[in-house]
């Protein structure tokens, strides 16, 4: 199965085509094709995961003679100090040359290793659940079939990105998911804000994509190949100059910032909530936005060497991630739209992952990606369930929700599990992964980022408590008749809740389970990373901070303690609130200052070109020459040069006037000149060659 993993992206791609062609004529209007294809992909991904685990266990276990892995079995590389990790398990690769240009080969292929298998599992699982969920959520939508087709295309592109063995293929998948994101955000494009949000998401990520493209090109010229494994190997062995690595990793980081909603390009992600909720869950929480983190993890040696992550000094990657944690979490406090709270929370959690990569916590960051996908998809789908059956298709927590606990028990309990997992409460999934990021940050002596992470954990717990309070507690403030959602919606919620509880136990360092690390961490072409020992004090501190966050928020919202109405009384607090409400004025900066000035400058420049260059070219030559003439008239001997100068000016003007007629604007006259010159030239050729 590992060698045939190309089937996994192929199935949704086929279903995309099939839904477009025949979807409308099927009894369920194409949904059955999408669910079936993605379900089949999920089964295949499970088989692939099982085989990969088998392979790793087989290689690291005692039976060294049993399986011959060919060149895959190398000697012990990297002294992690663990009990295994003496055997390197090479990724399974398969591919062919797509086309060749000179000596450069462009390949299409797959490279399957632990990271890929993990991503395949997460993407197909979440996508399958979202497909099922949408059968009910999107029922009766005017573009139902179209929605399913694009959902399938998105899944296929994301899987293509994940299995790619070279940077070009990765870029293709990367752009395809961006395209699907654009179309799905604008699914209800009849309303202008939705269409605007789609364009904004597309263009903002494109700013980062420029960096990605430059990064890939730089890496190509540095390493001489597009092959990811080869690039990583060369980066680890120091065969690429440090300067080139710095440039490449900085450019690639631009791509991560754009795609994964990192500061300062995070502004598109909250707006992307204009799309249907299943899309938000699948694309803007669980899968597409982690593509940036995946890129960072995939090309980690490049970043590791480029940013000198082992040095323990502050680097750009960790700094961006850390900033994003705080910025995103702070904004989540002032949102009234439940989906926007979750969107800012996603930004903040992605910040954890990027910071994790930046402080050398590769396993922890990828693990957080893994757990976050489940509980954030759960939270988004839960929010969708609330709006679908509880609040009359509104997402406004303050106006249309409240007290829904009584009406929607399944949604409430699963949402609670998701919130606890997000807040990092033991034993839910988020605790294990977040704690591991913090532990590694502490151990690698990134004390600053450890503190940032703790502050972020506090804020996360607090804003999720607020969100749960506003949605599920208090009095019902809406006008509909809230009821529980149908089974197609609640079953995915329950499945995801199960994963949100259990997924963390795959790598629970406190219980000395490190299966995730063994299975996922690459052993070939990968820098030797330190792995943190479990520290009770650190974990307890993280837990205490999260509990404190819940407590403070609980006191404020549930018990009505604390400075209520402070924003109305204290001007400083009001200023802070306004500042947050306006999202740090980043949107204003982008739209008015940057885009505005560029637009203005371009408009002015083209106006100037129009006036001075196109219209004025001919006249300009004449008047310029006339001015030269006048200058000479004043300075030089008037009588001697007079006539010549005037003649020059006049003749230039006349030439201009004559040339003016050549620019008649009549295409046929241009064509006449063209043919006449061709005829003359052929004649010349004929005459001179004989």
């Amino acid at each position, binding site marked *: 199965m590992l060698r045939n993993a190309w089937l996994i992206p192929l199935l949704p791609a086929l279903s995309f085509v099939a839904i477009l062609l025949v979807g409308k004529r099927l009894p369920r209007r194409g949904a059955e094709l999408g669910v079936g294809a993605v379900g089949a992909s999920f089964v295949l991904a499970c088989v692939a995961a099982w085989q990969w685990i088998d392979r790793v266990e087989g290689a690291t276990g005692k039976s060294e003679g049993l399986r011959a892995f060919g060149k895959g079995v190398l000697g012990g590389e990297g002294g992690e100090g663990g009990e295994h990790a003496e055997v390197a398990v090479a990724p399974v690769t398969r591919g062919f040359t797509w086309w060749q240009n000179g000596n450069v080969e462009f390949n299409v292929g797959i490279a399957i290793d632990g990271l890929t298998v993990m991503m395949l599992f997460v993407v197909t699982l979440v996508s399958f659940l979202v497909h099922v969920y949408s059968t009910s959520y999107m029922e009766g939508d005017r573009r139902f079939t179209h929605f399913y087709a694009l959902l399938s295309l998105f899944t296929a592109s994301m899987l293509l990105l994940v299995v790619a063995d070279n940077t070009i293929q990765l870029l293709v998948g990367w752009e395809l998911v961006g395209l699907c994101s654009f179309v799905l955000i604008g699914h209800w494009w009849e309303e202008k804000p939705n269409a605007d949000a789609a364009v904004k998401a597309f263009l903002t990520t494109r700013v980062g994509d420029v960096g990605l493209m430059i990064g890939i090109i730089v890496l190509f010229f540095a390493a001489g190949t597009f092959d990811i494994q080869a690039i990583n190997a060369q980066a680890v062995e120091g065969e690429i100059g440090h300067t080139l690595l710095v440039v490449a990793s900085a450019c690639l980081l631009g791509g991560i910032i754009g795609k994964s909603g990192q500061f300062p390009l995070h502004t598109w992600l909250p707006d992307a909530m204009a799309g249907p909720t299943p899309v938000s869950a699948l694309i803007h929480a669980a899968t597409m936005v982690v593509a940036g983190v995946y890129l960072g993890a995939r090309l980690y040696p490049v970043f590791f060497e480029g940013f000198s992550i082992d040095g323990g000094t502050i680097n750009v990657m960790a700094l961006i991630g850390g900033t994003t944690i705080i910025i995103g979490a702070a904004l989540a406090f002032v949102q009234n739209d439940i989906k926007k709270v979750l969107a800012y929370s996603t930004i903040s959690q992605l910040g954890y992952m990027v910071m994790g990569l930046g402080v050398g916590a590769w396993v922890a960051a990828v693990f957080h990606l893994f757990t976050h996908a489940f509980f954030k998809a759960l939270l988004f789908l839960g929010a969708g369930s609330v709006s679908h059956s509880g609040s009359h298709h509104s997402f406004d927590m303050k106006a249309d929700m409240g007290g829904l606990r009584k009406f929607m028990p399944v949604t409430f309990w699963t949402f609670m599990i998701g919130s606890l997992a997000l807040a990092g409460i033991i034993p839910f999934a988020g605790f294990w992964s977040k704690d591991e990021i913090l532990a590694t940050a502490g151990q690698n002596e990134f004390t600053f980022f450890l503190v940032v992470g703790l502050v972020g954990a506090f804020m996360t717990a607090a804003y999720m408590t607020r969100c749960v309070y506003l949605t599920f507690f208090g009095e019902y403030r809406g006008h509909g008749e809230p009821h529980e959602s149908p089974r197609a919606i609640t079953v995915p919620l329950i499945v995801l809740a199960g994963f949100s509880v259990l997924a963390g136990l795959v790598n629970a360092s406190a219980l000395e389970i490190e299966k995730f690390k063994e299975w996922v961490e690459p052993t070939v072409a990968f820098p030797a990373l330190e792995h943190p020992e479990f520290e009770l004090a650190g974990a307890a501190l993280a837990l205490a901070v999260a509990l404190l966050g819940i407590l403070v928020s609980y006191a404020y919202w549930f018990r009505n303690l604390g400075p209520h109405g402070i924003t109305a009384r204290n001007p400083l607090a009001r200023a802070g609130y306004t500042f947050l409400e306006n999202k740090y004025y980043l949107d204003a900066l982008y739209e008015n200052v940057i885009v505005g000035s560029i637009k203005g400058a371009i408009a002015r420049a083209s106006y100037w070109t129009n006036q001075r260059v*196109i219209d004025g*070219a*001919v006249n300009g030559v004449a008047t310029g020459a006339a001015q030269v003439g006048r200058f000479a008239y004043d300075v030089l001997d008037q009588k001697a040069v007079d006539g010549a100068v005037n003649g020059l000016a006049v003749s230039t003007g006349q030439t201009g006037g004559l*040339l*003016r007629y*050549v*620019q*008649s*604007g*009549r*295409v*046929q006259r241009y*064509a*006449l000149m063209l*043919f006449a010159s061709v005829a003359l030239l052929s004649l010349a050729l004929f005459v001179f060659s004989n």
Partner: protein
Amino acid sequence: MALNQFLILSAFLFCTGVYGVLARRNGVLVLMSVELMLNAVNINLVAFSAFVRDVGGQIFALFVITIAAAEVGVGLAIVLLIYRNLDSPDLDRVDQLKG
């Protein structure tokens, strides 16, 4: 096999086409003349292909036919728009680019 007759035919067609393109004012007729020129080229290609016994020329001619179809599609759309905007297919009136 005699090559000349094909070349003469093709040259004649081509000149007709050139004349049409240069002299006709109606955009549709200009497009038709362009077709004539393209087909003159095709005749040349096929003739030479048969003459030197290399199938490449014929394949090339097939490509030209395909491209010509696409080009006519675009061209007709342009003429249609010109007609809509100016109420006549007269190409002399399309002179907004003049200096």
